[in-house]
């Protein structure tokens, strides 16, 4: 009787195992495999993404590394390294590039340089002009004039949610 019961249970367990395996599709298995390879530390990773989306939402405000790290509950130096590992640039580099990209789009719509500087989060026109020249090779005024003359439309960069891997 006990033996029969044991065999019966074993049979049910085996059927459960094969069923489980059968239920998971090839695609599902692949997803779990890549998840394990790429995103093994779910929580940590989620917070780095949160930090990036904090920058995406607040780039026009007066934010710095402290604010960004705090938004994702990180200590500053630990965070800096994680962010760079994920996106291949520091949070500050990312913030600066985003501000310049937004500025380029605003310049195209004909908004005066002096207004754009504040709109995209720079605290002074000189820091804006300086960085813009460094990153694009021309001053905002020259860039705007060039756009107007050539009728070129700057290609908008789609907001990325998948990070650099």
């Amino acid at each position, binding site marked *: 009787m006990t033996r029969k019961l044991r065999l019966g249970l074993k049979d049910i367990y085996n059927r459960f195992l094969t069923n489980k395996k059968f*239920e998971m*599709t*090839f*695609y*599902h298995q692949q*997803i*779990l495999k*890549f*998840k394990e390879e*790429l*995103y093994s530390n*779910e929580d940590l*990773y*989620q917070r780095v*993404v949160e930090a990036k989306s904090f920058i995406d939402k607040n780039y026009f405000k007066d934010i710095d590394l402290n604010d960004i790290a705090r938004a994702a509950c990180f200590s500053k130096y630990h965070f800096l390294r994680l962010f760079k590992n994920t996106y291949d640039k520091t949070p500050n580099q990312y913030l600066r590039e985003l501000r310049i990209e937004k500025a380029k789009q605003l310049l195209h719509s004909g908004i005066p340089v002096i207004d754009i500087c504040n709109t995209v989060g720079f605290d002074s026109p000189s820091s804006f002009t300086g960085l813009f020249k460094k990153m694009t090779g021309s001053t905002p005024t020259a860039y705007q004039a060039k756009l107007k003359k050539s009728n070129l439309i700057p290609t908008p960069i789609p907001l990325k*949610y*998948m*990070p650099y891997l």
Partner: protein
Amino acid sequence: MKIKVTSVMVDNQDKALKFYTEILGFVKKTEIPLGEHKWLTVVSPEAPDEVELLLEPMGIEAAKVFQKALYSAGIPLTAFNVDDIQKEYERLEKLGVKFSMKPTKMGPATLAVFDDTCGNNIQIVQV
């Protein structure tokens, strides 16, 4: 150039229209009879003038082979974005939709895969 139409292959257009509108919640945009089949598209009520989804009949045998292969491997034919995947998963499951993958976190995205009853796996994504 713009992306205006994309398609899912379906084994029966009338059944597909019912599932994609009544269950998923899309709305019919165009229906043009073309002999045995029709040009039949649905859109999301959230973006009625953006990309249309063509419910495409499988007129050739090879399409059926391809669809079957994808289906049995659990590979989604296409994916739709949702704001709240957990809510959507619960809503659809209550309506009897079968999921081969429940909401699963994948880095910044959460994915789930369901059966559209027309021969396909469809993925929903929350980012």
